[in-house]
Every structure is written in C-alpha cells, then in structure tokens.
C-alpha cells in the first residue's frame, strides 16, 4: 500500500518542486532522483502484487493487478532512463540557446507531471479518473511539444491539443455510456465506474449501450494510441518536441492509451457476448500497421520516421488484442514491453544523432559509425531490434503474434508479412546511409550518455533469448485476467 502511494508521490512532488527550481544547474540530478524514487517504489509494489495478489486501496480509488503492475514498473523504468538521458541532452539544448531558464523549469516540471498522470492512469480503479488522467497527460505534454516555440513546433502543439482533445472527448462520451449501462445493474451512485465492481456485473449490462460505448471509446482512446486515420497528431508531436519527450510519449503514453482500450474491451466482451469489439480492434490495428509501414518510405525527418514506426507497432498490438486468444494476448503484452524499451532507446539515440549532425533531416545525417561509434551502432542495432530481427525481443513477441494469427485467421498472416517487409525496407533505406559512409565536416562534438540505450537494448536482447520466469508468470496472470485462460 505504501509502495503504491510512494510511486505516485514521487513524480507529483517532483512536478511541484521542479516547477520552482527546474532552471538550476542541478535540476537534472533532482529530476533523476525523483525518477529513482518512483522506480524503487514501483519495484516494491510489483513484488508485493506478485507475492500477495491484487491490491485494492482503502477508498477503492486504486486497484493494482497483474495487468497494470507490469506497465507501472515499465513506466517507472523508462521514465528513469529517459531522465538520465535528458540531463546532458537538455543542457546542450540550453547551451546552444534553444531554451531559456523559464522553459527549463517548465520542461522539468512537466516531465514529472507527465509521469505522474501516466502512473495515475494505470493505477486507478475508477474508469472516470482514468479518463481524467489521460486527458491530463495531454495537458502536461502540450506545452512541451511547443517548447522550442518555432512555427513548426507551435503548429504541432496546436494540432496535438485539438486532435487529442476532440478524440479524448469521444472517450468521455463512451465512459458516460458505460456508466449509464452500469447504473442499471449496479446499485450505488458512486460505485458505477469502479473497475472492480464493473468487472463483476459486465455480463448483465445492456448490449446496445455497451456496443455504442465501445465504438466511442475506440475512437477516443484510439486517437491517443495513434490508430490510423486518427494518427495525424503523432508524427508532428514526436518530431517537434524535445527528444526525451518523444521517448516517453512513444514508450509510455501510447501504451497507456492502449491499456485503457483493453480494459474497456474486457467489459464489452462479456456484455456483448460476441466478437464485435475484437473485430473493430483488428480492423483498425491492421489498417494502422499497413498504412504506417508504407508511410515510413516517405519520411525526411528521422524522428517522424520512427514515430510512424510507433504507429505501426501500436497497430500490431491493437490487432493482437483484437484477436483475443491467450497466445495473441500474451504476445501483445510482451510486445508492449519490448516495443516500449526499444523505441525509447531509439529515440534517445536519435536525439544524440541529431545533436551531432545539428539537424533532424535524414539526408543530412551521415556516417555516424565513423564519427561516433556508440551512437552509430546503437542506432543500427536499435533499428534491427525494432524491425523484428532475431535474437531481439521484438522478434519473439511478433513470432508469438504470428503463430496466434495463423491459428485463428490464417489468411491475415499475408498482409502482416507484407507489412513487416514493407516497414523493414522503409526503415533500412533511411538508416543504412545514416550509419555507414563518410561523415560530413560540420558535425559537432556533444556530450553523449549512451548508458540508457545500452541497458534498454540489453534488456530487449535478454527478453529475446530467455524470458525470465517471473515476467512470464506475470504476463500469464495478466493474460488469464484478460481472456480467461493462460498460455503456460
């Protein structure tokens, strides 16, 4: 219990304190300290849940089970490594005059604020608070997207604000409908949105209302997941904001939105008694996966390119949760971890690469392996990992997903394989000249801290070679919760 409150307290206190002292030279260390605190607390919470089962807080406001606890730990971990990277990166941005004192304060405070909203969204038991926290996540990051105050970044921020705001409003309408349906079967005005209560009564809720609610929720949270055709904000927001923010947006926010969607699917499925929710998710997922793979070929900006890769992977996960069997769900849960670790590592590397080259334009970043081997090799290996090469973990999870697809919908494997090949070609045609070849003369020397990247890639490699028993048990428990049976 204390571990749960500590997990939420650290980023909250961090947001307040760094709002005051975020411009100090030592603020980057303070930022790391708060992230370490949250990570340790999340680790203790995970151990507690692993040994004692789900935890329900006293006021029923928080509920931690196998499904959200591993995402909480993942969030805290990626938050920690990103904060380590963010220190030298933001110092460099300040040195070259892109941000001043005031904006450093804003940046540090909102970094912690964002982590807080993510952790709150994951740990809450109230589906209304889940909505409030995800909307608050938009609010904390919107000024970070436009942090550099250029024409492009303000455009990206405005688009992000309006599109996500409108999208998430649909999710609120869906939530209101769920509450409406639950009010018919659950006594007590205040309990009707509690996950622990809804879960028990899901089968009795009205079919028509739940079907309608799920459509609104899919559109709403799907906007945040970055599902095509609601994805337009995502590449803009990722490419124009500071890189540490791109890393946490891609690694955390998309996962949390997908988490919300899956929670509602778990309510819609018993209520509807058919596969409507799953079919909708499969359709949107496959569309996102295919379209994003093609769009990878048309990118000129390296961060935009990798944000399309995020859309592609989120599409794949949505598709897998849509299929719904134990194997597909297990694969999708594993894919959430490996994608998040790999993608945040890539964004960190890309951030270093664009500081070295002084630009994010792909055609101007050249010869990274010569000029800075650590960055060059990390970029190459990270791209191999995200493209699904063995022995990295993404290969394992994609392999599981494909096996599950062959079992349930054999003919859908074809578009998946084509999509993977297209995405692979799209990534490598751009990455290959960036890492090999001669570096141009005007590359800068920047302070580089590649430890976060190495740790992430090592973890992904480890997950590809052997999934630790603890994690497998955990994912299995989550799978049992979501679809009723496990794989182990």
């Amino acid at each position: 219990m204390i571990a749960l409150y500590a997990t939420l307290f650290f980023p909250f206190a961090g947001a307040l304190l760094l709002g005051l002292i975020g411009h100090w030279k030592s603020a980057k260390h303070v930022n790391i300290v708060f992230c370490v605190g949250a990570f340790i607390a999340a680790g203790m919470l995970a151990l507690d849940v692993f040994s004692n089962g789900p935890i329900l807080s006293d006021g029923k406001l928080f509920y931690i089970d196998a499904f959200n606890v591993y995402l909480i730990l993942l969030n805290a971990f990626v938050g920690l490594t990103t904060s380590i990277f963010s220190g030298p990166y933001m110092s460099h941005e300040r040195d070259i005059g892109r941000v001043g004192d005031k904006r450093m304060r804003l940046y540090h405070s909102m970094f912690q604020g964002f982590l807080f909203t993510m952790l709150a969204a994951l740990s809450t038991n109230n589906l209304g608070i889940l909505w409030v926290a995800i909307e608050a996540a938009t609010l904390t990051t919107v000024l970070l997207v436009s942090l550099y105050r250029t024409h492009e970044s303000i455009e990206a921020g405005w688009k992000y604000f309006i599109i996500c705001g409108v999208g998430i409003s649909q999710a609120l309408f869906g939530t209101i409908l769920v509450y409406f349906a639950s009010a018919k079967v659950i006594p007590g005005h205040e309990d009707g949105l509690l996950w622990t209560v809804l879960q028990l009564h899901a089968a009795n809720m009205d079919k028509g209302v739940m079907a309608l609610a799920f459509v609104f929720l899919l559109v709403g949270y799907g906007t945040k997941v970055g599902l095509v055709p609601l994805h337009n904000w995502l590449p803009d927001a990722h490419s124009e904001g500071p890189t540490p923010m791109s890393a946490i947006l891609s690694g955390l926010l998309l996962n949390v939105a997908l988490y919300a969607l899956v929670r509602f699917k778990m309510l819609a499925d018993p209520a509807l008694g058919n596969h409507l929710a799953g079919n909708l998710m499969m359709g949107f997922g496959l569309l996102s996966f295919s379209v994003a793979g093609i769009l990878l070929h048309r990118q000129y900006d390296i961060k935009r390119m990798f944000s399309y890769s995020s859309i592609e992977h989120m599409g794949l996960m949505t598709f897998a949760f849509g299929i719904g069997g134990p194997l597909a769900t297990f694969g999708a849960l594993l894919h959430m971890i490996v994608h998040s670790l790999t993608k945040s590592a890539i964004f960190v590397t890309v951030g270093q690469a664009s500081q070295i080259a002084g630009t994010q334009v792909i055609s101007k970043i050249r010869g990274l392996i010569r000029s800075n081997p650590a960055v060059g090799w990390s970029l190459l290996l990270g791209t191999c990992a995200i493209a699904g090469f063995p022995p990295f973990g993404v290969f394992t999870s994609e392999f599981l997903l494909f096996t599950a697809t062959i079992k349930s919908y054999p003919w859908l494997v074809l578009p998946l394989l084509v999509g993977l090949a297209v995405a692979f070609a799209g990534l490598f045609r751009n990455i290959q000249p960036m890492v090999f070849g001669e570096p141009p003369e005007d590359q800068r020397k920047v302070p580089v801290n590649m430890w976060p990247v190495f740790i992430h890639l090592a973890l992904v490699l480890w997950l590809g070679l052997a999934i630790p028993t603890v994690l497998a048990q955990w994912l299995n428990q989550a799978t049992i919760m979501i679809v009723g049976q496990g794989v182990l």
Partner: protein
Amino acid sequence: MLIASLSMPEQVTLTLSALILLSSFLLLAQVRVDSLINTFALQGLLLFFATLAIAFISGKYDLLISAALTLGLKVIFIPILLRRLVVQLDIHREVEVLVKPSLVMLFGGGLVLFSYYVSLPITELSLLSTRNTIAISLAVVLIGMLMIISRRKAVSQVIGFMSMENGLFFAAVVSTFGMPMVVELGIAFDVLVAVILFGVFFFHIRTEIGSLDTDRLNRLNEVDK
C-alpha cells in the same frame, strides 16, 4: 409523448435542452468574436438551469454542486478569461469569414438526426421521461466538433471545443444524474487547465504567425522539402 402530459419541471427541462441545441447552432453561425463568447456563456447558463431542473426532478441534490461548478466555470470564468484574452490580442471586433455557412448548417442538422438515430438504444432504457435529451447532448458534442473543423480562427476552435465539453456534461447529467463526484471534479479541473493553456497558445500562435488563423499552421506534412 404529449408535452402537456409531462410535469412542469420536465417540460422546463425539455425546453431548456431544446434551447441548448439552438445555442449550438447559434455558435456555429456566429461570426463576431465577442458575440461568439457571449453565445458560449449563454449556452453555459442554459446548461446551469437545465442541471438545476434535473436536480429538482430527480431529488439528487449532489447535482447542485455540478450546477454550481458549471455556473462558476462555464458562465463566469471561461467567458471572462476569453474576453480578456481577445481584448489583449485586439481581435474582439474581428469578423470571421465562414466557409460555406449554409452547407455547414445543413450538416449540423444532419448531425442532429444522426444523434437521434444513434441514441435510440439508450433512450429506450432511460429512467428520465425527458429521454430525447440524450440525443440532444450527443448532437451538441458533434456540432462542437463540426465547429472545430469548419472554423479557422483559433478562438472559434476553442469555443467549439468547450461547447463539446458542454455537450458531454449535459450527457452525464441527463443520462445518469451526473458522474461520481471525484470524476466530475477531475473533469472540471482538466477543463480549467485546458482553457488556460489555450490562452497561452493564443499568444504563441500570435507571436509566431502574426494572427490567429490556424490555416497558416500548415508547414508539417509528409512531402519531402
């Protein structure tokens, strides 16, 4: 359903929800920035009265807190903040040129029909006798969305956004007598922060492109430069 067979408070609620829908159309057609803000405040006021009426019909007096929140936030704070902003930015006398106004209005009418069609399964279940208010709230949400799409000025888009929020609040009030209090407070907080951030954005957009025409925010796209 005969109007005359309903009780007095129910008739009041129905009339108010009709007026709320009307105010949505007014927002859609309003071209002057200062009148737009006034119309938005009017919609908030109607929402406040509707919430009061429903609180008395249902006897759920926690709705009075929601009503007070609406009055404070949507009738007083947000309109005053927006007015101060537009005066500071010196755009309060501006008149926006609408793109194909009659087509937009027709489309809005279509959205109302669509909302009635979509909310059929819900209205059959509703305990309230003023059932079709749910369809109206969905229509207000969708018309707000239409407003964001059809307008160019940042201020009009923000008002469309806030009007969507009005529709959502109305939906919660008429279908379930409001959300649980902790959720309602959370939503109100989000709206409050959102409107302040929108204000900050107005200044950023203005400094960068010299006006508040979001049409000119068009640099980011997929084509190679």
